[in-house]
C-alpha cells in the first residue's frame, strides 16, 4: 500500500499503458493511444497510436496498426507501423508489412510482402 498524506486515497497512477498478460485472450478490436504489450492471445484487430509489442509467447492473429511494432512472439496479420517495425530473433511474422523502417533480426521468421515506400 502506497503511503498517502492526510488520509486521502493515493491518486490513481498515471496510465502506464495496456498489458495483456499470458493468461488473457481478446477476440475483437483493441484501439487507443496507450502503449500496448501483448503476452497472451489477440484475434481481431489492433489499432493503437503508440508502440505495440507482441511479446515472447504471445499469439496475435490480427491486423495491427501502430507507430512502432515489435514482434518477439507470433504475429499473423497485415501490419502498418508509421515509424518502425522490428522482428526480434525469436519473432515470427506472417503478413504484409508497411513501415518506413524495418529491422528483422537473424533467426526471425518472416513471410509476406514488405512496403517501405511510406509517404
Amino acid at each position, binding site marked *: 500500500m502506497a503511503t498517502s498524506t492526510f488520509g486521502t486515497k493515493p491518486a490513481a497512477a498515471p496510465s502506464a499503458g495496456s498489458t495483456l498478460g499470458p*493468461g*488473457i*485472450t481478446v477476440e475483437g478490436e*483493441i484501439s487507443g493511444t*496507450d502503449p500496448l504489450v501483448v503476452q*497472451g492471445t489477440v484475434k481481431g484487430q489492433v489499432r493503437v497510436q503508440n508502440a505495440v509489442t507482441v511479446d515472447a509467447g504471445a499469439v496475435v492473429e490480427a491486423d495491427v496498426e501502430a507507430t512502432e511494432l515489435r514482434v518477439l512472439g507470433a504475429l499473423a496479420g497485415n501490419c502498418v507501423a508509421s515509424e518502425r517495425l522490428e522482428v526480434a530473433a525469436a519473432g515470427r511474422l506472417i503478413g504484409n508489412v508497411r513501415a518506413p523502417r524495418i529491422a528483422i533480426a537473424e533467426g526471425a521468421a518472416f513471410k509476406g510482402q514488405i512496403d517501405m515506400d511510406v509517404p
Partner: protein
Amino acid sequence: MNPSDAATIGANTTVVGALRGDVPLTVHGRIEGSVQLQALLTIEAGATVEADVEVASLTVHGTLTGNVVAADRVTLSRSARVTGSLRAKRLQIEDGARFQGKIDMDEA
C-alpha cells in the same frame, strides 16, 4: 511489472469484443462486449465497462453496465456506478455507490 497486475487496460485504450483469461485484470480504460475471467476483475475509477461479466470476483470503482456473475465476491466501492444484474456469493456495497438493477445471492 507488478505481478498481481498481470493484465491492464490503460486509460486510453478501448477493447471491443470478447475478453477471456485466468489472470487478474485491471481496467482503467474501456471494454465493450464480454469478459470471462477466472480471477479478480478491477474496474478502476474513470473506467467504463459495458459488458456481460463472468468472473471469480469483481471490484468496481468506475462505471459498469451489464450482467455480472461472480463465483465469489463483488465489491462496489463508493465511487461505483453499476447498472445491471448482479449474481454473487458475497456482495459488498459501500455507502455512496450507485446501483440500479437486480441482485441474486442465491447459491443455485
